[in-house]
């Protein structure tokens, strides 16, 4: 038995699905962010698996940029969470449907 690219792709698909379901189910903005990270990681795994299958470095370079964007996204997202939590302590995603003053 040998580990083929399909194994990695299947694992990535399952991981992406878990992240997507978590994003839809949970209401705590922090946990929702973590679920987005899960989905990003699933895609990263797929990138690297395809890159390895093709013997190409392009997949790894793409993952590098995804990592940078994920870091920037987390910084901005957590800044938003802190700003919202200052005005409305304990706010869930359902409580911030109104984004006016």
């Amino acid at each position: 038995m040998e580990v083929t690219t399909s194994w990695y792709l299947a694992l990535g698909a399952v991981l992406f699905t878990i992240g997507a379901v978590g994003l839809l189910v949970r209401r705590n903005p922090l946990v929702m962010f973590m679920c987005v990270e899960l989905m990003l990681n699933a895609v990263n795994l797929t990138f690297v698996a395809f890159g390895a299958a093709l013997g190409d470095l392009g997949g790894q370079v793409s993952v590098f940029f995804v990592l940078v964007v994920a870091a920037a996204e987390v910084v901005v997202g957590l800044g938003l969470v802190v700003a919202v939590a200052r005005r409305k302590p304990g706010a869930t995603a359902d409580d911030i449907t109104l984004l006016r003053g």
Partner: protein
Amino acid sequence: MVEVIVFVACAAVVLGGAVGVVVSRNPVHSALSLVATLFGIAVLFVSLEAHLLAAVQVIVYAGAIVILFLFVIMLLGVDRAEDLETEPIAGQRVLAVASGIGILGASLLAFFALAGDDLITGQPGAIQAITDEVPNVEAVGELLFTDYIAAFEITGVLLTIAVVAAVLMVRKPPASVVEDDEPPNALEEVELTRQAASDAAAQARAEAEAEAEAAAAERKAAAADDTEQADEADDEDKAEVD
């Protein structure tokens, strides 16, 4: 055989961590489960011979991003257990699981049924072939600083913008700006100026609160749960104090 064992162990850690992120009642436990998932992915990167990415994954994700999450969790004091029993929106979970099955089915179908043996159709080594002579770190680094130098510079700009945005968002605003979260012992003058300047804002806030209360009442009717009610009573108390 070793590869299979490594893959199966890592897959178990990755999926277990992912499920832990979703089902943990406490956000701190979610963050720690996320660390397990990220480490599993890092080991899979090693087994795919992406050594630089494995190191970056551990340093940036597990080292920086999760720590940032934990900082915010602790800072905001939201590390108490959540009530996951009640469903805030009727049918939300059923729909979420249904769409999850849809996503999983669609991607697995695309991977295996439709693609079949022609799963990978790209041209091998189109951007830069992986060779055994050049170490992985060196090869990726060279590619980043030659072919992808423009993208690399732009990510630097992106990170700078993100830092500036984060500082702007969480900065304490000057006293003239209307704020809900001033401590009660703020200067009387500031208070007066603020109130004079913020009639419209107060009205808008009152409207928002009325709507929030209506929404809360709806939710209470939908989910007649004790803890939920206690939470909302808390919220209303806070609103009155404000």
